Each structure stands twice: as C-alpha cells, then as structure tokens.
C-alpha cells in the first residue's frame, strides 16, 4: 500500500447506511496518482457505495475523503460539482448517456458544462471518440448504440476533461467478454496515457486482474488489501 503522503485520494473510516442497511462500516482506502485499484466483492457488499463516496457523489455519515489533501466534506455542493466535472471521470455499468444527445454531444457535455466553446468541445469529443475507435458513432444517439459502443462513448465522456481520477462502476458488467475486454482496454490504456488514477469496481476477477492492486469489500468492510495485492 502507498504511503499517505503520496495518496491522491485518501478515505478514512467511511460509514454509510441506507435506511437500516449499513453499506460501509469504517472503510479506509488510499489511491496513489496514476494507480489502478480494483474494488471487488459480492453483490451488495458496498463496493459501489465506496466508489460513490470516493467520487464525492455520496456523503458518508462518518469518516472523511481527502482528494489532493482537500477534505471533500469541507467543500460546498458547487465546489464538489466542479471537482467532479474537472478532476474526476465517471463510468457506470449502463444508462449514463443522455438519450437525446448524439454520442459526440454526450462526450462534449462535461466541457460544455464547464463553459468551453462548443466548437472546441466538439473537436475534443471527436478526438476522444477516434482514440477509442468510435468516431463512426459520433452522430448516433444512445438508443442506436450497442452496449459496448455505448460504454466506449461513456469512457470517452469520462476522459474528455483530462481527469486525474476515473471512477468506473462495473464498466463491463453488462457486456459480453469480447466487448468487455475492448472497453476495459480502452479505458485503462487511455487513463494510463493521461496518468490518471482508476478506481474500478467489479465482481469479475478477470477484470480485477488488470489493476495494479485489488481490494475486497465484504459486508461493508475492507479486507486486508495487501493480502489481495496483484504482483506486477
């Protein structure tokens, strides 16, 4: 495990409950810059909740998440929104694209939200679609895309702002093996080129094997991460 001083993201003692169900029971985790960490565990173990807490989407009831030394809890909602828009990228299992927008517009959306020029945003979107082998899908709407194609567009959207961290929640969970491998390769290679950290939630050991490190969540608790470290 990395030293705290090197950690880009550091979570300590995270607790989160949904009603009477405790999803996280004191989780601590650090992610270094440029590192890919796989968070694995059974369905309902709390791994997606952990990812959403790390990404500043969910607020934990106890504990803290620091990004680049800044505690997310001390940021206003507007600051957290800007942080997610500029520094984080998010890829979900499915259904994250805006159905009315073309693939290119979906990719350009985070830049437009950040008040970038439309033409420049569109060019950047096309560039990322090309890198991910999805340029021919630029004008298609999400309803016209296959699962794998939609995920490649989602990966492009997550990377278009040049994020420092990409959070991916079961990005290949709804795909067949071939499409899943293509999406994962695209995500990880693009993130490595951009020196971005990746937090990858998955229940698939094949997917987890692509990570630098694997941590396992069981019943809202993190098992000893070192035990599951993948040798490189």
């Amino acid at each position, binding site marked *: 495990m990395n030293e705290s001083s090197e950690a880009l993201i550091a979570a300590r003692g995270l607790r989160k409950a949904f009603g009477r169900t405790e999803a996280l029971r004191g989780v601590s985790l650090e992610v270094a810059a440029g590192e890919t960490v796989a968070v694995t565990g059974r369905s309902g173990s709390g791994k*997606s909740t952990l990812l959403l807490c790390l990404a500043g*989407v969910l607020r934990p009831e106890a504990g803290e998440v620091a990004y680049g030394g800044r505690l997310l809890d001390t940021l206003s909602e507007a600051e957290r929104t800007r942080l997610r*828009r500029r520094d984080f990228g998010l890829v979900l299992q499915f259904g994250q694209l805006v*159905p009315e927008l073309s693939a290119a517009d979906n990719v350009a*959306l985070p830049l437009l*939200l950040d008040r970038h020029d*439309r033409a420049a945003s569109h060019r950047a979107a096309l560039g990322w679609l090309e890198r991910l082998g999805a340029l021919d899908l630029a004008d298609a709407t999400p309803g016209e895309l296959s699962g794998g194609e939609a995920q490649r567009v989602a990966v492009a959207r997550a990377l278009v702002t040049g994020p420092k961290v990409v959070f991916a929640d079961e990005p290949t969970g709804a795909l067949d093996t071939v499409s899943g491998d293509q999406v994962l390769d695209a995500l990880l290679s693009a993130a490595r080129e951009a020196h971005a950290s990746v937090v990858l939630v998955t229940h698939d050991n094949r997917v987890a094997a692509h990570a630098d490190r694997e941590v396992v969540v069981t019943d809202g608790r993190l098992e000893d991460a070192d035990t599951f470290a993948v040798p490189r």
Partner: protein
Amino acid sequence: MTRLAWTLARAGGWARMLLVAACTAVVSGLLLVAVALLLLPENPHEAFFNLVADPGVRGGTTFGTVLVTVPALLLLHQAVRLGTAARERRLAALRLAGATPGQVRLLGALEVGIPSFAGGVLGLVVYALLRVAFGGTAYGTAERDVYVSTPRLRLVPTTVTPAWWQVALVVLAVTLLGVAAGALASRGLVVTPLGVTRRQRTAPPRPWGFLPMLFAAALAPVVVAHQSLSTAGAMVCVALAVLGMASLAPWVAYRVGRRLRARARSATMLLAASRMVTQPRPLGRAAAAVGAIALVSGGSAALTADLFSTNNLESFYVVSMVLVFGALLVALVVVAWTLAVHTVESLLDRKRSTAALVAGGASLRELERAQRTECGLAAVPLALLGVVLGTVALGLVLPVLTPAGLAVMLANLVVTPALAWVAVAVAVRAVRPWTVRACAATNLRTE
C-alpha cells in the same frame, strides 16, 4: 377485474389518481354549468350578469365555459401519462401472469376510468360550489334587494338544474374522456409477457394545425357577412382556431428545437433543444394550451382596444373583458400544472441518466435551467404566435384604432408571452423536489 384495476390504480400512486379525479371534476362541474345555461328560458326568472341575462350573448358565454375545460383536459391527458414506465412494467407482469392482451387493455382502461368516474361525480360538488359563488338570484326572493346594494357576478343559474339523466350523461362523457386519454397515452404500446415496447413515431410533427386555422380564416368573412350566422359562426371559428393552435404546439416545439440545437453554445441550450427535437410531442401537448390561451388573449386585447378607441367603457364591457382575462389567467395556472406534470414525468423517465449527469458534474441549477429553457422554448414562441394571430385576426376588422387602443394591443403582445414564461418558471420551481430526487445517487445503483 374491477378490484384488480383498483389495486393497479392505487399502485400508480395517489397523486396520479387525485390529479385525474381533480381534472375530471373540474371538467364535469363546468359542463354541468354549461348544461344549466342551456336550460335557461329566454327570459329567466332570476337576476344575472348581462353575459347570461342577455339571450343574444348567452350562447357565447356557454361556449366560453366549455372552452375553459380545454386546459383541464390537456392536464388530464398529462396526468394520465404520469408514471407511465412503472405502469407499463406492471402491465407486462400481468401478461406474464397470464392476462390476455384484451384483459390488459381493459385493466388499463379501468385504471384510468375509476378515478375519472369519481372525478365526474365530484363534478357535482364543483358545480354546487360554482352555484354558491356565482349563482344568480331568483326574482321574488329577499336576496333581490341585496343584489342591488351588493352587486356580485351572477353567472350560474339557480332556478334551473340539470335533470338526473343529464348529470348522468355528463359523468359518463367525462369518464369516457378519461378512458380515451388513457387509450391515447397507450397508443403504440405493445405489451408482451417479456416486457413493453412502444412503436416510436419517428416522423417529425407536421404543421397540420394551420389547416383548421385557415378554415376559420376562410369562414370568418362569411360569418361577418351573414348576421344570422354571427353567434354560431363565431363559435365555430374560435373553436377551429383554438384547435389549430393547440395542434401546432408539437410542430412549433420541434422547429424551434431544431433551429436552436444547431446553434447551441451552452450545455443548457443543447440539452433543452435536443429534448425538443427528440420528444416534441409530449412537450408540445403540455404547452398546447398556451397557444390557445394566447390566441384568445390576442383577440380579447383587440376587442379591449376597440372599447378604448370608441370610448365605450361601460361597466358591462369592462367587467366582461376582465372576466375573459381572469379566465385566461386561471387557464394559464392550469398550464403551469400541466408543464409541471410533464416535467415530473420526464424526470421519472430519465432518473438514471439525470443522476449520472449530476454525478458527472452537472449542478441542480444547470438541470433546472435546462428544464426552464426546454419548457420556455416550447411555450413562449407558441404564446407569441398565438397572441399575434389573435390580435391581427380581430385587430384587422376594428373600424377605429386610437393610440390608447393600440397601446393596449401592443402591451398584450408583451404581457402574454411574459406570463407564459412566468408559468414555465413557476412549474419548474414547483417540481424541484422531484428534480432533487432524480439527482440522487441511489438512482445510479445497478438494477
């Protein structure tokens, strides 16, 4: 079967049922007032405001009362669509459990029919309340003296009451309207045991709404030329024009959206314009009444301008115009409700992508701005088109127009679209709790 339909209706939520019942209650109550007006003898035995007392304009007043039901019917149509996705899942589950397509259709009809029927019956209460608030005063009663000293709007007959079979017919008609709205909402729906598919209408909307309006324009000179046709002819012309304006709404939304999508510079405009292009029909239906209201508003402003120009400011005319504009304002409030229901339905339909958008860095404020832009761009151009057409249509036949009259018409050209915008802003603000709920991270959870 009725028990199952009742269970399904409850599963759709009390809010939807209450909204459907409230809409049908208002429609039923107004229709009962219209029936009572039709039942009045030429010289009624009660004191009324001139709009009802004068047999020459009573027909127009009855027609106006029926017209006020139009926004309520459009809200009913929107309310019926509320929670469509969940309802379609329930119907698919029923098919899986062994229900035939016919049984599913019947259940769908009963699910809307039950609250519509309840609303139809509750219309009697609305009618009774309107009688209390705006009832005429029968001659020979002690109240007649009060009438002289404390004038109030006497518009609803109290000496005549619809017969039981007329009430039954109104309730039946309103129930059937509710069922028809439900059937319209389920049009193109294919429910199989494996799920629900909807035959998408991919063709963009066409401007067919201009046809009834052109027909009304062609009919107008004939009506003006033949005095005997004036009341009935004017009603037909107004009905055709209102129908045309309401039908134009999806086309206007689509054209405005298309034009703006290509020129969008911000995420807000891109999101709003893209929704207008891909979903012009639901949005257009929600905003449809704005066009009709603006059309009547334009026409009424022209008539008001005529009163100013001819210095004919007798209390009858002034109160009549105030009544018309008051009814238009009430209709606009109903439009705000319709837009709010549309926005809620739209949010329920895309909870996951909305939550993903927020998780990816869009703020609540930006989402609300997109909602406001989307509804505003559908409603305001329609209001502008309606008010201009209404003003021009009646303004052209005015014999004299003074600067004061012109000022009234011009002011209305600004005020009507501005009020449409206010209705949109109120609607979007009212649905904030649903918007906040749609943004929740729980919507991101894997299903």
